[in-house]
């Protein structure tokens, strides 16, 4: 028994320590590196203003490769690619920006303009309305905000439960009971949203075709029959992968295989 107790204690202290260190690191690096990042961002903006779109794209790309992934950087990168004629990469980066900030008008508008230029017009089978609502609900707030709501409503639920338990007054008891149940449901929903939102940002299965034209095969090899052809900028869902091949599904339900390099997945390293 004592041994077990000790390991738990050890683990906790270890974890706490690493947590604190990582927190401190992030804090300092953000203090130290921010000016450098800021200047790179300013440089990229200036390049864009001088119509040096390929240079600007390179600079923004550098920022994102450093892990600086804010919706604004993705959005500007998308603009630079768009001006350069890389429709696929433009849409990819607009989608990433939208992933991090689903409520920005500029992002939504530029994405729509870019999508209008995509050659492939694929019918969308609209989702069931509940699924649509849940999607909007999940994307309403960042993952960590949802997590905090979950925690706070959990605490409130416990308080209400105690109120129910200790109160002598029947009316207060009743109120306590119903709010306990309601808060429990809210807490569970908020936690579910936090998990879903995080998965949505980091493990998205959507991808964008970045090669000008790509043949979709019936099987994962170059000898496979061509099923159909997709063009730059089309959104696909990745459903399976074998070696350097990915099976994809379109929004209209068509399926096929293509080589991994022809598409780029829409996901970010973080973004809460």
């Amino acid at each position: 028994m004592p041994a077990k107790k000790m390991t738990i204690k050890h683990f906790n202290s270890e974890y706490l320590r690493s947590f604190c260190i990582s927190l401190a690191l992030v804090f300092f690096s953000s203090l130290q590196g921010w000016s450098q990042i800021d200047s790179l961002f300013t440089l990229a903006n200036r390049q864009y203003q001088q119509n040096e779109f390929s240079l600007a794209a390179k600079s923004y790309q550098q920022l994102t490769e450093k892990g600086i992934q804010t919706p604004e950087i993705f959005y500007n990168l998308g603009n630079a690619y768009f001006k350069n004629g890389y429709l696929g990469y433009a849409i990819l980066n607009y989608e990433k920006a939208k992933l991090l900030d689903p409520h920005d008008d500029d992002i939504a508008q530029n994405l729509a303009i870019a999508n209008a230029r995509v050659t492939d017009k694929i019918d969308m089978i609209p989702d069931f309305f509940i699924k649509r609502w849940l999607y909007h609900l999940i994307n309403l707030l960042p993952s960590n905000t949802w997590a905090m709501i979950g925690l706070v409503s959990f605490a409130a639920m416990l308080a209400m439960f105690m109120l129910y338990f200790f109160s002598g007054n029947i009316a207060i008891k009743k109120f306590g009971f119903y709010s306990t149940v309601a808060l429990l449901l809210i807490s569970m929903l908020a936690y579910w949203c936090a998990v879903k939102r995080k998965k949505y940002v980091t493990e998205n299965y959507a991808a964008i075709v970045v090669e000008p034209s790509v043949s979709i095969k019936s099987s994962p090899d170059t000898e496979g029959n061509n099923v159909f052809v997709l063009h730059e900028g089309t959104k696909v869902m990745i459903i399976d992968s074998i070696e350097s091949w990915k099976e994809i599904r379109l929004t209209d339900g068509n399926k096929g295989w293509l080589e991994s390099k022809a598409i780029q997945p829409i996901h970010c390293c973080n973004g809460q």
Partner: protein
Amino acid sequence: MNKILKPPQPFIRSLLLTVVLLSGNCALLSAQEVQFIATAEPRVLRAGEQFTITYESNQSISDIVLPEFGDFQYLGGPSVSQSTQIESSPGRTYSKTTYSHSYYFRAIKEGKFTIAPATVKLKNKQYQSNSITIEVVGAGASGASAQGQKGQSAAVTSGSSSDDVYIKLIVNKKEAYIGEQIMATIKLYTKLQISGIDDRFKGPDFTGFYTEPIEIQPLRKFEPENVDGDIYYTGVLQKVLLIPQKTGELAIEPFYLDISIRQQVKRRSNSFFDEFFEPSVQDIPLKLKSNRIVIRSKSLPDNKPVSFSGAVGNFTLSSSVDKMKVSTNDAVNYKVVIKGTGNFKIVDEPMLDFPPDVEKYDPVIKTTAENPMTGTKSFEYLLIPHYPGEFTIRPVEFSFFDLSSKTYKTLRSQAYTIIVEKGEGDTLLPAISGMAKEDVKLLTRDIQYIKMKTRNLPFRGKYLVENMLYYLLYALLALSCGLILWVRRNHIRRTSDLAMVKNRKANQYARRRLRKASKLTKADNKNEFYDELLKAIWLYLSDKLNIPISDLSRESAQSALTSKKIKDETMNKLFEIIRECEFARYAPASETVDTDQLLEKAVKLIVRLQQELS
């Protein structure tokens, strides 16, 4: 190229039919442009040897004004000849007459001499020939005969290369960028008479290069060439354009060529017939080994422009459209031409962005080469606008690596705006199917400008839902709540237990007090029971209220009980029991009072009093 390979002897030139005419027939081709060409044969020779300068024309010429030939000894001439060549191909026949004047000279001094053009007057017009360069080398010590090819006396043993015959691979540069063209020439040098060359000769192995063979005319005649003061007869076997495909030192390993040389055989026999019937020459096979060449290939700089697709050299870009104003569903030809020196053949189709409601056909791509290094590549697009209005062909961008400045250069073509008018009877066809109205609206709009500010760096740690602390907080909250509940609950239980014990004790106490009375309930003597019950109650009150039994009365008990804050209800019950007992005791007539019930009432009363007093 054609000129070099043209056999200089005019008499054997005809391909189909040569008619040598003795008398002039000059007016035949007078309408033709006048040609006046000077040639020298041979162009490279030793001092003391003779050479011929021939002036050729397609017109009858007479008065040639010769330039100065001060450096040479005049031997003879002019010898005038005329040849007519009649060529017939299906459908037409034409003849060509050449008049030539030959002069004979002997070279005296060594050096390189340029013979100035000669002039001729034809129909009151002056014509100038080209100038010729003659190279004279010193009379060699080798003792080789003046006629080179013909009179070869040096004996060669079969098998290997010698100084007199060798093969050489010549490249025009030894350092090149990837994609840069290198001209490689395989040349045979000989002083001997060559009777045969292996026709299966494939050339060297150019590993690491993209090769592009250049068509040359088959080798018919060797040309004299001055090699370090010695005359060799040379012939080009192969010409190849090499384009390095990877960086580093690329070696072209030596290769072999089988040839045979013809040698005169000296015979001992003096018989005339021997000489007549036996061949006096002999062919000796030889295997020639070439030199080894190393080419250093450099990679192109990294800052490649977006539109760069591997073109290296020097190019120009031009574009054109055939009309600026069309009606709907009429075709517009749009042509992009890339012209220049370099690897123009690999130039990709430029990235073009035509408006989506203009139908575009795949371009017709034409590659024309002026020479192996220079040429043009053109892309011709057929565009069919389906909607009236204006459409713009945006500028095309083309990038190449400029070898002279060693930088990338980007060329931009012109933009064209083409006005499309509605054609008669044309129905408007949608260019792209499945396009919604909003899409069309969006196509004409430009994207929103970039954002100048970015939000602060988001927290780069884990998500809360991935963080152990987050779950620990949950556990902590639940635990603390549980703890509060447990503590409160325990407290309640303890306090309620105390009350129960007290209650039980009071009950026992009351029953003990009423033990005698309870025994008497079974007895027939009810009076004793009532006496006993009363006594017990009064004694209890006396004990509890600390009032001596003698002083105890209903009034004193009541005031004492009131001071002890006993409830009126309890007091009433007490006095009711007392009254009932007394009533039953002194009015025995009424037997209706149940003793058991009364006893139970008394017990309850005492328990109650006990609780209220404590």
